[in-house]
């Protein structure tokens, strides 16, 4: 014995519950001073308090139209979830949509199981009955897709009715995600049980139709599981575009049937490739999570390894300056490499490449053709190019090189059009020297080229391009470049900076934005932590475009982070755990 109580052994201790209690006061969950050692009212548990406290509960991103959440919860169990799926469209087209919503429902149940993974207890035999009504056969996600939904949860004794009404399957899926966010788990020793809000009404739709995350599989190969895990996180954060920067000068991991040489020469190793099967698998995984994949084959710059075989096969130099040194003279980052715009075989190979991609991707899907950071010095140091320019009566000044660069993009687009049987779909290009507002009109048709700007928040480029009628996707470099902070003079942008980055309105011609996870310094292992929860921060900006700042969102985001971790995503810690438990005391 000592003055402060008896020496108790550890086993006794473990039985002693540590349970502080939390109370919802002024929309904050406030921790009481004393731990309760006996079982207390479950509403006093932190994650339950967060579920019901405040107008938005633990929903991320916050709904934009209408929201009412009851303060009451009820235990449920993953085994007692049933669906009634109904499509008001009856003709044959609806088959695919019906199949898709069924798959989405299955994923919902799987995720609920993950939420309550360890020893999930059945406290009550409450049935969660989910009725989904859609009225569209649409299964391709585009910028025009109606993603709105209404979710109505009503409790009737031992039955909870969740009614989701949406125009499309994609809207309905968002409804399921929101429904998922009305749930949390309570831990009891080595077991868990699931609870959810009893009554709720949510009407919701996104502000921007393009809510994206860029990943880069050229600077480092990313394993399929990593990409799928990322898609899972996106689905739960209502991000809807995975911009797949698949290739670059470093490596070419796509193994395509018409031109296997690209991966043969360009992959880091035979294991580090994506086959057609892999890509199809990813597209389907993404679609079931409400995400479309836009693939980028960067060109004409950022193309080197993978393109070295032209000469030995009698096609001439497909890419020039490949791995050339000293690299600073020929590119912005090693290894150098730029497609050879004057070699007609380049367009033939691109044609085969696009044809493979068109076959793999859903009909009408948009492609990204890269188009950034052409090093004029590379082309200018390549004799066959300068000879060609001379022959064509061009000089070697910048303007003529820009002309050549624009020639490349227009010819590449034309190549794609031929494959699409003259269907004119636009392609996306990065902002560059070629897209300077003062001269872009000379080079790129605003009806055919969508520009993804990656300028800094203080620059006017985006606004000026919008004024000229160009459609944009915004990736503000000094807020949404998730790779910054780990090299050179770059600075890391925390979740609040990401959140508080405003972009021009949809009505001005903006589809939306993307946070960019460039791959120089990230691979399978650190990807989760670099991307999450910061990409979720961007998702609320793009879905809700809130007028409030990040500080109003912190505790909801922390709950979302906990949720992502339960789903198997290793999201970064953004604040000491003590602050998570002591709302408002770390400001």
């Amino acid at each position, binding site marked *: 014995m*000592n003055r402060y109580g008896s020496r108790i052994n550890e086993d006794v201790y473990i039985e002693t519950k540590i349970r502080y209690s939390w109370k919802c006061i002024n929309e904050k969950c406030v921790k009481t001073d004393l731990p309760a050692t006996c079982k207390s009212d479950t509403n006093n548990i932190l994650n339950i308090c967060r579920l019901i406290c405040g107008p938005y509960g633990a929903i991320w991103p916050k709904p934009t139209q209408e929201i009412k959440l009851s303060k009451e919860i009820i235990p449920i169990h993953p085994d007692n979830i049933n669906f009634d799926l109904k499509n008001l469209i009856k003709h044959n087209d609806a088959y695919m949509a019906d199949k898709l919503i069924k798959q989405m429902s299955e994923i919902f149940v799987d995720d609920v199981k993950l939420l309550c993974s360890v020893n999930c207890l059945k406290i009550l035999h409450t049935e969660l009955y989910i009725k989904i009504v859609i009225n569209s056969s649409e299964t391709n996600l585009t910028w025009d897709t109606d993603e709105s939904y209404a979710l109505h949860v009503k409790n009737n004794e031992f039955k909870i009715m969740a009614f989701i009404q949406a125009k499309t399957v994609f809207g309905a899926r968002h409804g399921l995600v929101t429904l998922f966010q009305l749930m949390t788990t309570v831990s009891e020793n080595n077991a868990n049980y699931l609870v959810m809000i009893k009554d709720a009404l949510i009407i919701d739709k996104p502000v921007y139709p393009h809510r994206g995350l860029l990943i880069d599989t050229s600077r*480092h190969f990313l394993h399929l599981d990593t990409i799928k895990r990322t898609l899972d996180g996106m689905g739960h954060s209502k991000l809807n575009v995975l911009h797949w920067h698949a290739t670059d000068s470093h490596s070419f991991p796509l193994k395509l049937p018409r031109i296997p040489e690209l991966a*043969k020469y360009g992959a880091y190793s035979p294991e580090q490739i994506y086959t057609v099967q892999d890509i199809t698998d990813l597209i389907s995984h993404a679609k079931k999570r409400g995400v479309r994949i836009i693939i980028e084959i960067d060109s004409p710059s950022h193309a080197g390894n993978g393109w070295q075989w032209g000469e030995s096969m009698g096609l001439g130099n497909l890419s020039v300056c490949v791995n050339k040194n000293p690299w600073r003279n020929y590119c912005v980052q090693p290894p150098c490499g730029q497609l050879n715009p004057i070699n007609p075989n380049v367009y033939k190979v691109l044609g085969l490449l696009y044809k493979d991609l068109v076959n793999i991707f859903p009909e009408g899907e948009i492609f990204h053709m890269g188009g950034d950071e052409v090093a004029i010095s590379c082309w200018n140091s390549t004799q066959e190019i300068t000879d060609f320019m001379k022959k064509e009566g061009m000089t070697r000044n910048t303007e003529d090189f820009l002309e050549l660069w624009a020639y490349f993009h227009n010819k590449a687009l034309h190549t794609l059009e031929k494959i699409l049987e003259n269907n004119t779909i636009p392609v996306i290009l990065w902002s560059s020297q070629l897209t300077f507002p003062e001269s872009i009109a000379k080079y790129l048709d605003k009806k055919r080229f969508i520009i993804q700007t990656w300028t800094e928040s203080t620059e006017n480029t985006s606004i000026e391009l919008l004024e000229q009628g160009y459609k944009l996707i915004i990736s503000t470099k000094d807020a949404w470049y998730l790779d910054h902070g780990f090299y050179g003079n770059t600075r890391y942008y925390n979740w609040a900076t990401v959140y508080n980055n405003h972009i021009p309105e949809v009505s001005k011609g903006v589809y939306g934005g993307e946070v960019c996870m460039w791959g120089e310094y990230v691979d399978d*292992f650190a990807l989760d932590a670099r991307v999450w929860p910061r990409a979720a921060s961007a998702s609320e900006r793009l879905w809700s475009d809130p007028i409030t700042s990040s500080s109003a969102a912190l505790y909801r985001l922390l709950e979302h982070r906990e949720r992502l971790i339960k789903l198997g995503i290793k*999201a970064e810690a953004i604040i000491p755990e003590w602050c998570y438990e002591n709302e408002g005391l770390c400001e």
Partner: protein
Amino acid sequence: MRFFQNQIFLLSIFLVISASIEDGDNNLPYCYSSKSKNQDVPVTWKCDRSSKKCVRTITEKDDDPLSCKTSVTVCKLLCDEYGSLWPKPTGILNIEKELTSINVGDIAFVMTISDSNSELWNLLKELQNYFLEILRNSFKNKNIARGGNELKIIFDIKDEETTSFVQDANENYTLTVNIINNELVEVLIDGENFLGVRHAIETLTQLITYDLISNLVLIPKRVFISDAPFYKHRGILLDTSRSFYTVNSIKRLLDSMAYNKLNTFHWHLTDSHSFPFVSKNYPKMAVYGAYSSSQVYTWSDMIEIRNYAKIRGIRIIPELDTPAHVGEGWQFFDNEISPVILCYKSEPWRTYCIEPPCGILNPVNDEVYEILKKLYSEFNELFESDVFHMGGDEVTFACWNESESVTKWMKESSLTEQKYVKDFLTTDRYIIQIWTKGNNKQIADLLNDGYDVILSNYDALYLDCGYGAWIGEENNWCSPYIGWQKIYMNSPEKIIDDLRSKYPITAENPLSQVLGSEAALWSEQADENSLDTRLWPRAAALGERLWTNPKTDWKVAESRFLTQRERMVSRNIACDVAEMLWCYQNEGHCY
């Protein structure tokens, strides 16, 4: 031109391999051609002798069945002058540039020690498992060809008593590999004590590689290495108070420390944020102070961690941060007995402390010392027994200079507390852990005052730096992010030389007062989800800095460093990326 027919013949017993001989400039003894899947990419690695770098080369005659290829792991093992070892050995290093295969299913250990009931015997058994586990891990999912030579590992240990690290323990070893009659690979490991032998095993794991072209597990035919560390204190600090880390994640940390011959785990166990330690004397401190009942360390957890560390040659230095950085957990006394803590959770926090929640021990309340005494004695029982029992005459304890004022307070007024530390840790002096910048005069002052020091200068060794601030939109206080290069170049020797140019240094041999250094992972913005990526591979740079004290630049080490990163990845450590993959495959092109 050299001729390697013999060993290729030996290997071809097991595999249908056709040998070819490269031209004199690039020859490596091993290259293979086969029609396996691995030959899809027409790539081979060639050793450039002048730069000692492996060059990734596209093979021109891809369809030629006799075209000859070398895998990257084999090339790096043979081409690099240090055999891709990390950290680089400090003594004699002789690695023959010829490889032979071993049979990972046929490994024998020979231990000649006097007492098979001793602790050493048990540790050596554990060490064998450790070695085999690493091999299993590294070669999992690999298609390994059958056959290969038997591997026999013979331990020779002089001091059978020393089994854990104490301040002046000898960590030296020699490692000899020989092939006998082309059928047995014999490894002689000679260490002063268990610690050296353990390090030798670590080195041995790095000499064994898997070749994805031949599917063989290979080792150089003859090796002689003698090795000893330059600095004795080579540590990592982990803060388990700002965020909780599970026992498993701490074990993973200990594994990765061992891979880099780091030998001190400085456990910043408690802080004002949480008190996860389940004390036998005061179990209620955790009831009040832990984040939840599952986020605690019980005695059995800690003993498990201590034993796990011991097999890896790592000692644990627990830190109970005082007198500031106390808070959660300590309110138990205030609420139930008497006030031992001041300013607990005081608001506005900026007035009372540097980060919320506030709290500081009440130094004039004797209760405080009563509590500390009991907590220290528990730590002593849990962690320090090895040090005491094995005859170490010094005990390092905690970092008293959390801030200059606390150090001062310690020196001038807190003799009582000092007394308790002495009573229970029987130390006769303090070691100061310095966390100022590397150019701070305080370092010179402390050296001149005769203190032994451990350097954790935040501008090179705080691995939490560079991320976003956790309050507001700026970056955290010690930004920018610290690259591995800076950690590698953070030489205590150079720090002293630079200080000497600005301030008088009167200490006779100041470098001898530097016991080593520690990299710190403070956990405001890290938890076990990002533990691996925050620490690794950057802390591996610290491993070589402290073990080897290299005089050469990080550029010289880069290729080996990247190899070490890949090695750790193959052992399930989720390392961050240090360089683009293309740069790893194309040495010397990213500068």
